[in-house]
């Protein structure tokens, strides 16, 4: 018998983890709605928006990856015609795909607001994108750590580390003189600082995913 069952596994996970998509999407939409009200509510809107995104980055790996081991369904999955590397690929595609869907919708909505709303400087766009990609990178870290470690304890440590690093990275990026200068600009300023950070984030994600596949392929004990 030939063929791969990766598509069936992805569909299964989509069906089982719908709430992990719907809840953050709702939270993100609420944040955007609050932002559009303006004033102090807009600040809370931004916080709600990024909290929803970060919540999604935490919920998906927990439900999608650790859930299989916690609920002892991993043995059932691994009894299917599937290798450990195929399992890893299916889980990566599912977790990242399920995160990327709402993430992309929220990012597009955020960009649309920045570019269309009167009084919001377009110069915010590069910073906004950089911070959104940072959350994506954080989600990749948690996903990869969960896949390799398969441990709730290590997942917790990874989550704390990622959340702390969000704060540090956001402060570093937002307080950079170049970035601060660009924020108030009426047009988006893609200077070397922003491009370096964005490029670094994307390169980090690519290396992380590759490293995870490499480590999973070398695993000798899967259950």
């Amino acid at each position, binding site marked *: 018998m030939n063929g791969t069952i990766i598509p069936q596994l992805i569909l299964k996970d989509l069906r089982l983890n719908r709430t992990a998509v719907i809840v953050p999407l709702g939270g993100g939409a609420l944040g955007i709605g609050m932002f559009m009200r303006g004033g102090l509510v807009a600040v809370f809107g931004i916080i709600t928006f990024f909290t929803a995104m970060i919540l999604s980055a935490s919920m998906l790996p927990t439900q999608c990856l650790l859930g299989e081991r916690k609920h002892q369904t991993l043995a059932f999955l*691994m009894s299917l015609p599937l290798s450990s590397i195929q399992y890893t690929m299916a889980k990566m595609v599912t977790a990242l795909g399920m995160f990327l869907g709402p993430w992309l919708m929220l990012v597009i909505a955020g960009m649309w607001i920045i570019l269309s709303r009167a009084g919001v400087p377009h110069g915010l766009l590069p910073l906004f994108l950089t911070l959104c990609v940072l959350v994506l990178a954080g989600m990749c870290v948690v996903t990869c750590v969960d896949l390799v470690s398969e441990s709730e304890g290590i997942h917790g440590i990874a989550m704390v580390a990622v959340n702390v690093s969000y704060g540090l990275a956001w402060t570093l990026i937002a307080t950079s003189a170049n970035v601060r200068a660009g924020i108030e600009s009426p047009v988006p300023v893609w200077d070397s600082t922003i491009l370096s950070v964005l490029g670094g984030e994307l390169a980090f994600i690519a290396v992380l995913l590759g490293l995870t596949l490499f480590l999973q392929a070398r695993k000798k004990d899967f259950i």
Partner: protein
Amino acid sequence: MTDLAVSFRGVGKKYRYFTLDKIDLSLPQGQIMGLIGPNGAGKSTTIRILMGLVHQDSGEVRVLGRQMPGGQVAAKWDIGFASEDMRLYDSMTLDWHMSFMRSIYPSWDESYAQVLLKRFGIKREQKLRGFSHGQRVKSALLLVLARRPRLIVLDEPTTGLDPVARHEILRELTSAMADESRTILFSSHNTQDVEQISDRITFIDRGRIIDSMDKETYLDRWRRLRLEAPAGIQLPALPGIIDVKQTGRLAVATANAFEPELAQAYERTGARVQQIESMTLEEIFVANVEHSRFEQSTEEVAA
């Protein structure tokens, strides 16, 4: 092609506190093998190596003609596996699980699945969360059997089941063997279950296969001899006897290669054979494990 469904040759796996030691195991196609061992003997590790889920450190494993773990994807199309600690998705119905399996296996037999639903008395529209332990085991077995795999591997399938549920499971496994090309390997520490349906029996203890042969041979070769020794004489362990326990003049000798000549040999030493008893599989298992452990400790002391 090979007529062996499962073949282990010198398979080893080392953990920090446990070692699977040079396992040799052969299971011909069309047979049921019971793998019996105490808790922590290595049954689950052996089965996980068989499934390609754990990679052996040494030795060769072939399952349905495929080298493991490399050939696990191809082999698992024809293997149905369920284990005592395996769970299905609690939030989903049995019907959803059946659809999931049907979407994967073209060999899924819906009419057989319907028959099994009736025989097991489980409802496909019910969520797994509402099932009892017995119903969960039956559901897992249904998902395995309705695929009609060539090899069925079950790790402690009857653990924790009530007698009626155990009987239903064993009856279904026996009827699955109506197809002569099908092979079953199942592990248990319940010797009654194994004795009931197995053709071949393998004993495993402390990571070593201590004995493996067909069931009838076990039951034929193992005997307990109740002896009365002459006063002041300690009866020896003759060839074929693995253990002699003597209290005063009364002795019990356990034979693992019984021949009628053995009783005559004891009589020649002056002993009187009071009784020759058949042994149950459980008694054979316990005697085998004790003998193996004694030999192992003797070897370790000698080394």
